[in-house]
């Protein structure tokens, strides 16, 4: 039995659910928006976890779940709670339910895609960069500072520099140019991250279990995810990675504890593989829609323990 957690209409979750239907694999949906119709309890005794999940009046033993796919949104921002005050009982009940689910996921001996603790490295991009570098990938030269003079010198050295958030919030990549220099003094209030721009082809690598799906993205935009906003276009094509690089991606995801990962690479003309970040909750649907790569199928098989 598989547990799918999130909003059922959310595209990646819906795609995995469709694949489970195709494969005739039983599943239960933990629909966050129906939190009032669910209860959950678990017990830990001498290291063994047992418990029950009640969904819409039906009860399931937690030990039955061999796979869990979590695409949870912040439960306090659910539409059902938008009018509820901060201390409303339904808010507290919703939080307690999610709290129980999340802590069970950390302990459950199931295939969890992905556990909360493993996802945390993405909350600090330069921290994750240090882990990425330790796994043999090239990383872009990075400067985080509150000193505008250092930034000017960094720009002088590299000619093309980008800036982006340090945390996972407001994570859009921009080129440092024009008016940015006029407001550079503002960084004195908050250290800011700058990186040397790396020329090459963007590649998104999805790893799931032992499978690797690579997508090449051709674009003139600084951040291909926002190509239209940045006045460009992006075209996506499935590609094969060299075996050694595919293996390195798998080892990186494994070292970060991620059963499913979206790894952002750039392959340079001189054949170096730069790694920018590892997304622990990849919205793979965008890539699958453009390339036809069977990523949702692989996730469903992984959850069912049949990926091989």
């Amino acid at each position, binding site marked *: 039995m598989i547990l799918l957690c999130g909003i059922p209409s959310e595209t990646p979750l819906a795609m995995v659910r469709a694949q489970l239907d195709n494969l005739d694999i039983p599943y239960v949906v933990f629909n966050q928006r129906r939190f009032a119709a*669910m*209860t*959950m*309890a*678990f*017990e*830990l*005794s*001498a*290291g063994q*976890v047992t418990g029950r999940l009640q969904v819409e009046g039906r009860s399931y033993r937690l030990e039955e779940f061999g796979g869990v796919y979590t695409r949870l949104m912040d439960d306090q921002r659910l539409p059902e709670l938008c009018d509820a005050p901060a201390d409303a009982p339904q808010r*507290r*009940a919703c*939080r*307690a*339910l999610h*709290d*129980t689910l999340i*802590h*069970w996921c*950390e*302990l459950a001996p199931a295939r969890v895609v992905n556990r909360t*603790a493993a996802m*945390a*490295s993405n*909350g*600090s*991009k*330069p*921290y994750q*960069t*240090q882990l990425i*570098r330790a796994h043999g990938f*090239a*990383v872009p*030269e*990075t*400067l*985080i*500072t*509150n*000193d505008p003079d*250092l930034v000017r010198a960094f720009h002088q050295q590299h000619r093309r520099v980008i800036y982006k*958030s*340090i*945390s*996972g*919030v*407001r994570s859009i990549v921009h080129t440092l140019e024009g008016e940015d220099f006029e407001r550079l003094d503002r960084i004195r*209030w*908050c*250290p*800011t991250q700058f990186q040397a721009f790396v020329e090459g082809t963007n590649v998104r690598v999805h790893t799931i279990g032992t499978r690797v799906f690579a997508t090449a993205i051709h674009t003139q935009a600084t951040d291909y995810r926002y190509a239209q906003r940045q006045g460009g276009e992006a075209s996506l094509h499935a590609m094969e990675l060299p075996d050694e690089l595919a293996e390195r991606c798998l080892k990186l995801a494994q070292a970060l504890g991620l059963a499913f990962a979206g790894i952002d690479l750039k392959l340079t003309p001189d054949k170096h593989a730069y790694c920018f970040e590892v997304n622990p909750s990849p919205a793979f649907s965008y890539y699958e829609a453009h390339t036809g790569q069977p990523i949702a199928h692989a996730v469903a098989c992984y959850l069912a323990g049949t990926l091989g």
Partner: protein
Amino acid sequence: MWLVLCTSRDTSALWASQGLKARGLEPLECVSAEMLAQSQRWEHRIDAQGATIDITLADGRHIRNDAIQGVLNRLVCMPFEPLRLAHPADREYASQELTAFCLSWLYALPLPVINRATPQGLAGQWRHRSEWLGLAACAGLSTPLYRKTSEDASDERDGQGRFVPSDTPVQTVFVVADQVVGATLLPHIRHGCRRLAELSHTALLGIEFAASSVDPWTFAGATPLPDLQLGGEALLDALASALRGQQELQP
């Protein structure tokens, strides 16, 4: 130079700084979170060679990784004053940025670092008590029964800490690298404590035990930020040894 990072109210760390100095760890700089938050200049770089930091404190002192021999890290947060002045719409974002930055430069400190920064805690990984319990059971320690239900109040605040009421007498044991300090233990409990530190990837771990009807040494909680004074001189000896690089630390 050795470095002790802590808040200005962390009497435990201030006590440890004096004890480490007395054991010959000199020069030793004790830098508070408040001082760090008022630093004049931050420079943190990452490239093919690794990660570096160069922090200029308000009093002109520098923290550079090439001058550091070892770090006792007790930072749990950084009270950045300018955040109070930020526009409310930007305050949360700026706070996340600064926390993410702290994690990265703390992680870049040269080893040995006790404890190394993690995404779940700047001075070592904080875990929900159900996770500690799971790890303690894996480590072979005697553990109490734990229940959690969605009917319980959400326990974000008390999710960490002891499994026993606060007035229950506990024995605190410390693991520093592979040394176990703090109480006379049976070999299998000593082994379990070391194993728990190993499983939790924590260089300095405080472990509490309470007597139960089943076992006089029942696991009652663990923390990467224990009260160091409870460990006395023996703990300072172990810390000094580990900070001199004489012990292999958990990553």
